């Protein structure tokens, strides 16, 4: 079931995922600038592409400061958790036929579990910083994850019902004739919103909320630990975009072009869409976030699940 060249797949996916997420810093700044009628970073190298390298050099040479009032062990481990959980999710991601690290038959559940574990990073970072703003950020992250994890899982069950499997490869194969975004449009919208909350992107970046909480959970972080939170966030965007592509937009399926190109094009389109949302939408208030999650999204997800189940049963 696994790929014919496991080591090559592991290394390739790791390197590509990490470099793509590093490059996303540049992509995001350029796109935000485009939508704000500016240029963005365009000085370092061609089109400013080497800005990423400059940022890396800067962030590696910064002082790596652990505050004396912090819980040291947890403070150091917290940024690693987000990287590990997101990168583990990439292991089950079918990028193209043969390019997958491990083809689990419960890949979707594995992804949901890993994305739930990712919140520990935020909560522990907020707690271990010993700073009231960080703690508030951590608390918000915990509440946000509980609210959005529930309907995120339920919104995906429609896809699972249609494909009849938790395996992501099977789900992609089931979309050979028709992408699941058509029969599962509501599920797609719900998963998109939950994914934004999961990646802590702008309409839902309450744990960070630099306008209210300094920088939220990573207020006390500096140097490469701060960098790991950022790489984790961009990896999260890449992962959510990849999952949307795999679950609703037919993964690598597409005419003419090779499968890998189709996958990358679709993922990039969703990354751009996430950045567009960041450029246009204001941050929700905390109570709005909670009531949206529990009062609107959860019932909608349940309705979607029930209707899909009824239709699938009726036409069996």
């Amino acid at each position, binding site marked *: 079931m696994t790929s014919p060249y496991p080591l090559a797949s592991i290394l390739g996916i790791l390197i590509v995922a990490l470099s793509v997420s590093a490059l996303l810093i540049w992509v995001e700044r350029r796109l935000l600038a*485009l*939508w*704000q009628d500016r*240029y963005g970073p365009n000085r370092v190298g061609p089109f400013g592409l080497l800005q990423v390298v400059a940022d890396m050099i800067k962030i590696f040479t910064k002082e790596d400061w652990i505050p004396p009032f912090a819980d040291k062990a947890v403070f150091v481990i917290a940024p690693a958790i987000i990287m590990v959980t997101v990168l583990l999710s990439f292991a089950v991601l079918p990028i193209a036929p043969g390019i997958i690290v491990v083809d689990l038959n419960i890949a979707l559940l594995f992804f949901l579990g890993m994305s739930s574990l990712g919140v520990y990073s935020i909560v522990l970072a907020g707690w271990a910083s010993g700073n009231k703003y960080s703690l508030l950020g951590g608390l918000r992250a915990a509440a946000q994850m509980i609210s959005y994890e529930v309907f995120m899982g339920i919104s995906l069950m429609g896809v699972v019902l249609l494909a009849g499997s938790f395996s992501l490869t099977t789900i992609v194969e089931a979309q050979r004739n028709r992408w699941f975004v058509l029969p599962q449009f509501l599920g797609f919208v719900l998963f998109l919103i939950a994914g934004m909350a999961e990646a802590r992107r702008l309409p839902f970046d309450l744990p960070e909320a630099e306008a209210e909480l300094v920088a939220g959970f990573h207020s006390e972080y500096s140097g490469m630990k701060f960098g790991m939170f950022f790489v984790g966030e961009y990896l999260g965007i890449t992962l959510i975009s990849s999952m949307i592509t795999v679950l609703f937009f037919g993964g690598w399926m597409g005419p003419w072009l090779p499968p890998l190109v189709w996958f990358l094009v679709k993922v990039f389109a969703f990354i751009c869409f996430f950045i*567009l*949302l960041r450029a*246009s*939408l204001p941050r929700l208030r905390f109570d709005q976030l909670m009531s949206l999650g529990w009062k609107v999204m959860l019932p909608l997800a349940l309705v979607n699940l029930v209707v899909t189940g009824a239709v699938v049963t009726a036409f069996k």
Partner: protein
Amino acid sequence: MLSLLRTIWSVFLHTFRRRVTIQYPEQKPYLAPRTRGRIILSRDPDGGERCVACHLCAVACPVDCISLQATEDENGRRYPEFFRINFSRCILCGYCEEACPTYAIQLTPDFEMSEYKRQNLVYEKEDLLIDGPGKYPGYNYWRVSGVQVDGKGKGEAENEAPPVDLRRLLP
């Protein structure tokens, strides 16, 4: 909900808008003729220094960046012995230009004065003095003032009434 979608769409339409940023070092911005930039000292049309070392600019300067020393030449005309502007302090407010009674000190539309050494931003008189009359061509302070100096008696200036003869009783 609909307004959110409209917001997203209108932000997306900015993809096709012109960018407002001016790419500065390659593309120079338009500077109005009266932009307040680097300070110069001008000369009158006859080539003499306009500055009469009255110290009004130094008094008006809110950051005390102007220092000068007054002296007189052989004709009894005052002029600055040295005139020093510290551009690392100067805030380009233009108060010195407003205070100047002889249009000597003027601000020009040039702001590119970066230096690697702070000391290089202290401009001496020979750095400040230009060869032209600046914004006021044809104006010569000594020709319109009522002050008597060598080469011009009282009442000989342009548009100047002859001086009152104190020994006459007629008006």
